[in-house]
């Protein structure tokens, strides 16, 4: 229905002839395109309609008085409105701040913290609510006066999940994000793909590794209604739209793999990445029978650092560096350098710009992988998971845990905790059918700290305390182990 009317309207590409790379790429990917196609539980929208909606937002935002570099908060659920606002904001050079659903109630505080001029959301806390079709409302709203200057150099402000350190707001430039998309897209095979989208779109993994490449590749993007929380809902959507690609966190893969149907779904996929948290031995064995890849990164790296080959897995495998340089620094910590490393972070209402060619300390302890010829890296642990005993001695738990898994047959995963600052207690997951580990052998893995050995506890896979992404929550595990030892 758009051929006859296309020439009647002024197109954004002609209104803004000069070179924002987002505008060029999004226009080429969406304008007059039936694919990409976005399928939501209650609506289906082709690229063309997203583009037209974005043009309406573009005009609405400009007429409200926004200038390039002004900060816009997007607090929308995945929806046509989310896509339209995102496309408009990127195309027009605004700084887009993404917020999680649980943050949306604090819109006033967020506007102040991010020194943003407008909050576009889908609840009463927002400055502006999109209409049903995703388009802007007929009337304009009053903008907040920004205290600081526009930040044209920042494309996106993204909150880290806090799973690898204290949560913070990371500032990413267009170059940061484009570098990662361009490095990852050739490996993803998304042309003609049906992508079942489970990951949140306000997080870097879901947005930069999953959604934006699918848009640029002209994929069909099917948004699962529960955001990947309910395996039954995932399977139902997959039965309606058999996906070719799915990216997910380990917990989602694990839950799917628990049923025959879920396992079949994982095995049927042509591609996708599993990342965001370390993958355990059992899940790694399962994923070895799929075409899924290990993906690793942090929001501070936009968030792509490494990617595995399809079906190449071992416990903790994070793939091979992609589009950036890496090195293993002091204490085995992975460091990253390249155009993917973030511009800086947002603090006290402004950008804290960091040196461009710096080495980003990921805080993740890694070692070279030894999976056949695959190469790459294996995650060993977080440097901040290390324990300081009451006498001040530092215990590098990642190394000890790796040693336990390597030396003790039947142990698939291990965690070292110190409930009291004196003893070291080891929690282990055993492979199916393996016998209970021997205390002496386990103590020997502690090396010079063997005299600190306080016991080994066999854990149940299902009762492990986990974060939302599937990583083991060490604080809760420590408490649980303390209870078991007492």
């Amino acid at each position, binding site marked *: *229905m*758009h*051929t*006859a*009317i296309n020439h*009647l*309207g002024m197109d954004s590409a002609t209104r803004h002839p000069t070179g924002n790379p987002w505008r060029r790429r999004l226009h080429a990917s969406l304008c*007059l*395109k*039936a*694919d990409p*196609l976005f*399928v939501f*539980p*209650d*609506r*289906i*929208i*082709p*690229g*063309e*309609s*997203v583009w*037209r*909606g974005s*043009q*309406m937002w573009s005009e609405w935002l400009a007429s409200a008085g926004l200038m390039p570099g002004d900060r816009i908060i997007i607090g929308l659920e995945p929806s*046509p409105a989310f896509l*339209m606002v995102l496309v408009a904001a990127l195309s027009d050079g605004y700084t887009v701040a993404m917020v999680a659903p649980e943050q949306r109630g604090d819109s006033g505080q967020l506007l102040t913290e991010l020194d943003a001029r407008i909050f576009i959301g889908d609840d009463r806390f927002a400055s502006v609510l999109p209409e*049903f*079709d*995703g*388009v802007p409302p007929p009337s304009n709203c009053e903008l907040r006066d920004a205290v600081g200057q526009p930040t044209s150099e920042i494309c996106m402000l993204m909150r880290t999940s806090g799973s690898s350190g204290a949560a913070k707001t990371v500032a990413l430039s267009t170059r940061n994000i484009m570098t990662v998309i361009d490095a990852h897209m050739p490996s993803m095979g998304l042309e003609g793909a049906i992508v079942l989208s489970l990951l949140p779109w306000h997080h870097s993994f879901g947005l930069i590794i999953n959604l934006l490449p699918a848009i640029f590749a002209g994929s*069909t993007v099917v948004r699962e209604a529960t955001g990947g929380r309910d395996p039954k809902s995932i399977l*139902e*959507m997959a*039965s*309606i*739209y*058999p996906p070719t690609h799915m990216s997910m966190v380990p917990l989602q893969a694990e839950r799917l793999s628990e049923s025959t149907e879920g396992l079949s779904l994982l095995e049927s996929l042509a591609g996708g990445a599993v990342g965001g948290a370390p993958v355990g031995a059992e899940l790694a064995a399962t994923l070895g029978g799929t075409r899924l890849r290990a993906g690793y990164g942090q929001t501070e790296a936009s968030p792509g650092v490494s990617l595995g080959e399809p079906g190449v897995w071992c416990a903790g495998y994070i793939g091979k560096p992609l589009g950036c340089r890496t090195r293993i620094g002091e204490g085995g910590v992975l460091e990253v350098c390249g155009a993917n490393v973030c511009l800086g972070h947002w603090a006290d209402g402004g950008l804290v710009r960091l040196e461009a060619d710096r080495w980003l300390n990921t805080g993740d302890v890694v070692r070279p992988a030894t999976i056949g010829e695959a190469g790459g890296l294996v995650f060993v642990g977080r440097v901040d998971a290390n324990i300081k005993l009451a006498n001040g001695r530092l215990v590098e738990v990642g190394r000890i845990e790796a040693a336990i898994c390597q030396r003790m047959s039947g142990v698939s995963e291990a965690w070292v905790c110190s409930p009291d600052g004196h003893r070291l207690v080891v929690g282990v997951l055993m492979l199916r059918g393996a016998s209970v580990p021997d205390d002496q052998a386990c103590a020997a893995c502690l090396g010079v700290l063997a005299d600190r050995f306080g016991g080994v506890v066999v854990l149940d896979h299902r009762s492990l305390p986990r974060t939302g992404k599937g990583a083991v929550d060490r604080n809760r595990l420590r408490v649980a182990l303390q209870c078991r030892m007492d």
Partner: protein
Amino acid sequence: MSSANMLRDRMMNRTAAPSSPGSFVPQELFAQLGSFSRNDADACDFGVVKLDDSGKVVMVNRYQSDLGCVAVSNFENKHYFTQIAPCTNNGLFFGAFRKGVAAGSMNITFPYTFTFKLKPTSVKIHMYRDPASKTNWVFCQKA
């Protein structure tokens, strides 16, 4: 009928009775399609487009013409999926049409978003092949 069920029908190419639950098309209309005239179509308060098996527009009603701001004369004899509504030229829409024509059976409903007068607009679509007259129809109503 939920969107999920509508989509399931689409994927399974299920042919339900003409009175598809959730369809906005009156049941009695299906029995008349063999002799459905332009006047009959113009009397409908939803869009009616008749297509040949290749997807070329044989007839369009005034409602649909007005909705898309495309004159009837510019609509007819053009290919619906590539020339009139290229935003439907994907696996879901055109793919389902081709599949239905090949199977000789098509009765599917799903939500979609067209751009009318430069504005994205949610619509309900019902694609139907009349087995008696072997004619293909796209019915469209604003949601």
